[in-house]
Structures are given as structure tokens and as C-alpha cells.
């Protein structure tokens, strides 16, 4: 696992603590680290070279060298340059398009085109549009079926004609959209290699038949140096208008796909960040840069929280916090909301300062722990959850027995809850939590590991600690 870029830069400067003056040699050392980190993030090596030269020019500036915090200065420089590299784009579809708008999804095999079709349709519905989907992938076994299933799941109409001719299928969908009043047609295409001349010709034919206003190249965030070549070729043949970066919910930094932006000159339109149909977002350059730097992604976190937490519920909660009426019941519903936000690990990753997975590993949330916390809460009576002060020895014993835990576990939970309540109270009063309170966030999270539904829910329930295959990462 690579360290975050910002940690590396800081590290490069840390070695010279106490030295009176910063020399160009020190900057070179930092640049070496930046170069390595970018290469490990799969940023195209030519892009890296040009990038390092630009940063070097700016970093050798006297103001940076004399600064008391050269590390910070250089990080800021890198951040600015990265942002410049990815251009200012707001993401999304092209501005002007005829109705019905035709969106063509293309790319290599396995990039996630079909899944993205479904997600994009769902996104369009959220924007108040009426999309129609069609699959022109008659090659991969069951690809047409896959899109139909997605259509059923997302409640999106799928154009499914008898013909197995890709061009006819696409034109048929456009005709149906015009006749039935759908305002957007999403055309899913078969994955193809950019060097497969026949298939590239087929893609051109589809494009010529339906005149798409948006040609989205779907790229996997994990892809390597070859991305430039393939995206470039797609662009040359059919003209790409935007990139969809998929599988960004992993730990890949997406450097190669991002290099496409600067080399091929196409903006990133959307990013896919999860397995559910809702998991497609507009691209925000600043967020991805923060991710590359390992500086967390507060904005995405806030958005995720907004999606997961009911507004009224949040207002009520705020009120309760202010009045210091936060109960175990509220705690339980918070846990549930947290679960809805996705794997805690990825949520934690968005918090600035926790981006470095090496540090976060210590606070590795444990699935089992979360299950226990939930069991304990569920074993309490409604009265106990409303007012935990009624808790006495015999109640604790009962709860422990009911939840299959020990009295110590129950005690620990109650203690954590009281601490948390005290902390929340400070925040609720509008006072900024001090350093101490800030420190507690990760600590509290320790032990809360949502087994995010519905995939894999319930698995690993009876796992023994350190099972035969060392289940959790041990780093």
C-alpha cells in the first residue's frame, strides 16, 4: 500500500528539521518522492515528467525555500498543479444537445459500461429526465440480459428488439424514444479493444446512425499506463466527449485515467463509486486531487451523509443535542444511518488526516464489534434506551446475556456513549470541539463496522479471530 502523497512530501522535508536553510537539494528529494508517488498512482510517466518540471520551477522560488513550512508550501504547489492538470470541469453531460439526447457508452471490456448505463439512467431520473436504454452488446454472453435486469431493477425502460444487429438496435431505440417521448437514449456498447479494427468500425457505424451528443469513454480507476493509448484511439475514431471513471470506491488513485484528461484532452464527466445503482456522481476535480494527495474528501463525505440521513431526523437530532437529550435510541438510529453511508472504511478515508490508510489501520473498524454494539442496544428495553441512567447491575447482566456479550462489553459501550454524549454536547452548543474531542472521532468509530447491506450481509458472522486466512488486513 502506498503512502499518501502528502505524507511522502512531508516526510521528505522532515529529515531536515533543524537545518537553518532549505536548499535546492532538499526540494529535489521531495520531488523524487512526488515522482514515485505519482508513478505508483499510475499517472502516465510522460505526464509525471512534465509535471515534476513545472513543480520544480515553482518550488525553487525563494519564497518557498525561505518559508517556515516548506512541506506545506510544496504540497500546496502540487495541489495547484494537479488541479491545473485536470482542468476546470464541472462534469456531467454536454451542455447543448438535441432532444432526444443520445449518450453512447464505450470502452474496453470490463470497464463497467453496462453497469454505468444503469447508473447513468438512474442519475438522469434524479435530474427529472426520462431515459431509455438499449444494449448493442451482442457479443458478450448475456450482456443484453444484464442490461434488461438492470432496467427492471432501476425501473428504466429498455429497448429490446428482436434484431441482433448493433446498428439497428441503436437506431430502433432512437426511433422508440422519439415516438414515446423519452428525452434521453443511453446506448450501451460491447467492450472492444482499440486495436480491433472491425469492432471500431462497428462503433463508428453506431455513432453515425444515432448521432450521439455525448460519447462517454468508460475507464476503470485501476487501469494502467495503457489507458492513454486506448482512450486516444477511441477519441481518434469516434470522438470522445467525456470520461466516466469507474470503480473509484477501491483504493486505486485513478492516475492513469486522469492522465487521459491531460493527454487526450477530454474532461471527466462522472465517477462511479460503488455497486449500487445510485453510486454515480458528477466529477469534481478538487475532490480527486485531495484523494490523490491523501488529504481526505470532506465534501463527498458530507454529500454521502446528506443522502443517508433524513433531513427532519437531522433537525430533530440537532435539537436533541442542544438540549442534551441524546439517548441510546438516537445512538442506534445514528448507527443505522452510518451503515447506509457505506463501508465505514471508505467513510473514514474521506476524513482529512485519516486518509493515510497506514494510520487508519490502527483504528480498523471491526465488523464483529459493530454487530455486538447493535446486539447490546437491541437487548435493552425501550425505557433503558431512552434513559440510560436507570441502568443497574442486574439490568447490565440481563443485557449481556441477551446479546451474547459480557457485562464488560455493556459497560464499555455505556462509557463510550457517555463520552460521546459529552462531546456532542460541546459541538451542539456550537463550540468547536477541542483537539481532545477531535481525537475521539476515530476512536469512537473503532468497533463500528457496518456490514453494508445487501451484499455479503451476514457473512463472516461466526468468524474466529485471525481465522485461517487472516481475514482482515494486517498491516
Amino acid at each position: 500500500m502506498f503512502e499518501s502523497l502528502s505524507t511522502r512530501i512531508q516526510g521528505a522535508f522532515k529529515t531536515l528539521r533543524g537545518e537553518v536553510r532549505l536548499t535546492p537539494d532538499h526540494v529535489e528529494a521531495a520531488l523524487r518522492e512526488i515522482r514515485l508517488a505519482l508513478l505508483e498512482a499510475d499517472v502516465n510517466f510522460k505526464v509525471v515528467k512534465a509535471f515534476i518540471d513545472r513543480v520544480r520551477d515553482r518550488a525553487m522560488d525563494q519564497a518557498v525555500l525561505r518559508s517556515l513550512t516548506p512541506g506545506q508550501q510544496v504540497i500546496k504547489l502540487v495541489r495547484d498543479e494537479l488541479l491545473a492538470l485536470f482542468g476546470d470541469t464541472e462534469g456531467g453531460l454536454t451542455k447543448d444537445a438535441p432532444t432526444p439526447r443520445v449518450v453512447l457508452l464505450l470502452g474496453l471490456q470490463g470497464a463497467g459500461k453496462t453497469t454505468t448505463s444503469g447508473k447513468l439512467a438512474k442519475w438522469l431520473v434524479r435530474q427529472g429526465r426520462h431515459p431509455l436504454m438499449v444494449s448493442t452488446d451482442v457479443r458478450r454472453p448475456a450482456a443484453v440480459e444484464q442490461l434488461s435486469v438492470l432496467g427492471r431493477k432501476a425501473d428504466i425502460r429498455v429497448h429490446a428488439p428482436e434484431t441482433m444487429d448493433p446498428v439497428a438496435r441503436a437506431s430502433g431505440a432512437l426511433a422508440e424514444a422519439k415516438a414515446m417521448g423519452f428525452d434521453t437514449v443511453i446506448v450501451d456498447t460491447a467492450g472492444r479493444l482499440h486495436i480491433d479494427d472491425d469492432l471500431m468500425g462497428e462503433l463508428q457505424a453506431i455513432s453515425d446512425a444515432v448521432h450521439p451528443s455525448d460519447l462517454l469513454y468508460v475507464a476503470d480507476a485501476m487501469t494502467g499506463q495503457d489507458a492513454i493509448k486506448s482512450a486516444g484511439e477511441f477519441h481518434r475514431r469516434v470522438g470522445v466527449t467525456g470520461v466516466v471513471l469507474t470503480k473509484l470506491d477501491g483504493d486505486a488513485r485513478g492516475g492513469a485515467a486522469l492522465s487521459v484528461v491531460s493527454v487526450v484532452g477530454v474532461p471527466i464527466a462522472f465517477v462511479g463509486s460503488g455497486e449500487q445503482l445510485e453510486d454515480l456522481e458528477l466529477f469534481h476535480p478538487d475532490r480527486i486531487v485531495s484523494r490523490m494527495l491523501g488529504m481526505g474528501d470532506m465534501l463527498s463525505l458530507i454529500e454521502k451523509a446528506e443522502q443517508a440521513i433524513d433531513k427532519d431526523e437531522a433537525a430533530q437530532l440537532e435539537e436533541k443535542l442542544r438540549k442534551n437529550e441524546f439517548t441510546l435510541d438516537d445512538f442506534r438510529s445514528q448507527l443505522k444511518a452510518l451503515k447506509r453511508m457505506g463501508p465505514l472504511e471508505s467513510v473514514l478515508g474521506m476524513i482529512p488526516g485519516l486518509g493515510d490508510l497506514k494510520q487508519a489501520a490502527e483504528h480498523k473498524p471491526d465488523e464483529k464489534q459493530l454487530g455486538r454494539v447493535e446486539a447490546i442496544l437491541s437487548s435493552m428495553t425501550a425505557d433503558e434506551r431512552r434513559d440510560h441512567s436507570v441502568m443497574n447491575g442486574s439490568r447490565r447482566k440481563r443485557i449481556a446475556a441477551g446479546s451474547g456479550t459480557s457485562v464488560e462489553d455493556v459497560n464499555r459501550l455505556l462509557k463510550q456513549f457517555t463520552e460521546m454524549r459529552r462531546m456532542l454536547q460541546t459541538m451542539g452548543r456550537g463550540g468547536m470541539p477541542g483537539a481532545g474531542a477531535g481525537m475521539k472521532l476515530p476512536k469512537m468509530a473503532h468497533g463500528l463496522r457496518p456490514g453494508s447491506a445487501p451484499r455479503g450481509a451476514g457473512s463472516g458472522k461466526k468468524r474466529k479471530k485471525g481465522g485461517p486466512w487472516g481475514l482482515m488486513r494486517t498491516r
Partner: protein
Amino acid sequence: MGHVPILDRLRDGLTRTKRRLVDRFDEIVRRADGQTSGGDAIDVDTVEALEELLLSADVGVAATGRIVSAVAGRARHGESLRDLVKGEILEIFGAVAPVAPGVGGREGEDPRQSNGPPSRVVLVVGVNGTGKTTTVGKLANLLKASGKRPLVCAADTFRAAAVEQLAIWAERADVEIIRSGDGADPAAVVFDAIQAGQARGCDPILIDTAGRLHTRANLMSELDKIRRVAWRASEGAPHEVLLVLDATVGQNGLTQAREFTSAAGVTGVVLTKLDGTAKGGVAVAIAHDLKLPIRYVGIGEGMEDLIPFSPQEYVDALFQQQW
């Protein structure tokens, strides 16, 4: 292995696009070999060019560093740069864990001998979209062609139509399949498949699992559950765990290999989509950093387009001047 048709196919898959890499390499070699007459170390420009070349093939920083410094540090006595680099990469592949018996058991070993050892169970894992289902289909075909009687198990009950996709492959390869509806518990399907496979005398049993990102702890623990259930169905199972990696993958491939190894006990790697322009250099990085053997490579969309991996052929294909 070593049949001419196989070589032809690998050649077809690799040549059309390895061209540029080969050309560049030739240029570097010509420069390096031309300037010296033995004894001298390679100059800085050549080292840098070589470094870039390896990086652009996704070989990764650590493995590239090793190859370059080994080559640069050595004073040459007549060997060409090409041989030095090839030798270095082969050495990296040579240092991996000894390859376990093939997916279908040892060559010439009768699976039914000595009171019938249980069928080998092969678990196929990987992140989304690397080609697991396709690989299982091709692998079943390959094994069937070599006289085995494989059974495939559709344990990807999550992705829409994944089960149908594997069913089509099974039909094409004419092998038996155990399947269940979308959304079923994958471990339960695996259990059924192992029992059915052994009852029917099928060997090996190839299990297609759902793609999962290695960062999703709950999904990774599902793999652990599948392993435990497989063990319960047949002690010692799974005998082999193959990680399917896309040749276009970048340095995240290393992380994937590391995570899947620690969560699911990967024993070998299948490198797919090597018919594009990607060089799959991450295979070198994986062999270097994790000592995992590469078992098969996928070189096309046809049913026969899966062949056993040979380091020598891979390196030759990467760097050979002429086929």
C-alpha cells in the same frame, strides 16, 4: 505446451501491438550496444530510457528499480542489453513459489486412483470486470480438451445475468454447470456444486465468484465464508485459488494481489486481455513483490484463447526482435 498453434496464437495476440515497445527497445539496445566495446557500464541516458520503457509497461517502481540497477551496475562483456534485461526478468519469475500441480492435477495423474482422491476445487476470484466468468468458461474448455471432466459452478449470484453468462460458456464448452438463482447465497451454491461434482465424478470443480473490490471488507469476508464452506464440503478444498487480473491494470494490481492473497489465499494469477496493447507488466511486479506464480494468460475472446503462462515466452514476446 509448446505446440506450434499455441505459439502462433500468443504471437498473434502479442505481436500486432508489441511492435512499438519492441521498436523502442531495439533503439535503446542499439544505442547501448553500439557505444561500448565491453567492460563499460551503461550510460545514464540508456538507463533512463529503459526505466521509462519498463514503467510504461506497468512493471512498477520497485521491480523496475531492481531490473535497471541490476543491468546498469553490471559491466558488460559482450552480452547485449537485451539479454541482460530478459535474464533479469526471468530471474524474477524464477524466484516465485514453485508452481503447484496444474488446475487439473498433476500431469499423467489419474484423478480416480487410490480410493478416489476428492475432486480438485478451484476458486476463481478478482475485482469487477477482469474476466472471471470468461476465464472459468475458457478454463473449463481447456481442461475438457485435455481429457478431464470439469464442472463449473456459478457462484456469482450478484451481478445481473452473470449466471446466464456462465451457462452460455458451459454450453459452448459442453461441461456441466451447477447454478442457482440471482441473489442466492454463493456459499450454498458452492457447497452444492462440490457435492454434485464429486457424486458425478467431475474433476476439477471450477467456481466463478462475483467480482469484488479488495477494499470491501465484508465482501472479502464472504470469500472466507466460501472457503470454509468448500472445506466442509470436501476437506482440503479449495485446492487452488486463482486471481484474475486484467493486463491493463496498473499498480493497483499489486494491491489487489496482496489483498486477495491475505483474504482468500491466492495460489496463482490469471492474466487476461493480453491481446490489447497492454503489456501486463504488473505480472513482473507481482512476481517480484509477492512471489505469486502466473498460471494462465487470456489472449482473446475465443474459447481457445486461454493458454498456460510461460515466463520465457512472455519475455520473448515482450522483447523479441523478430518472430
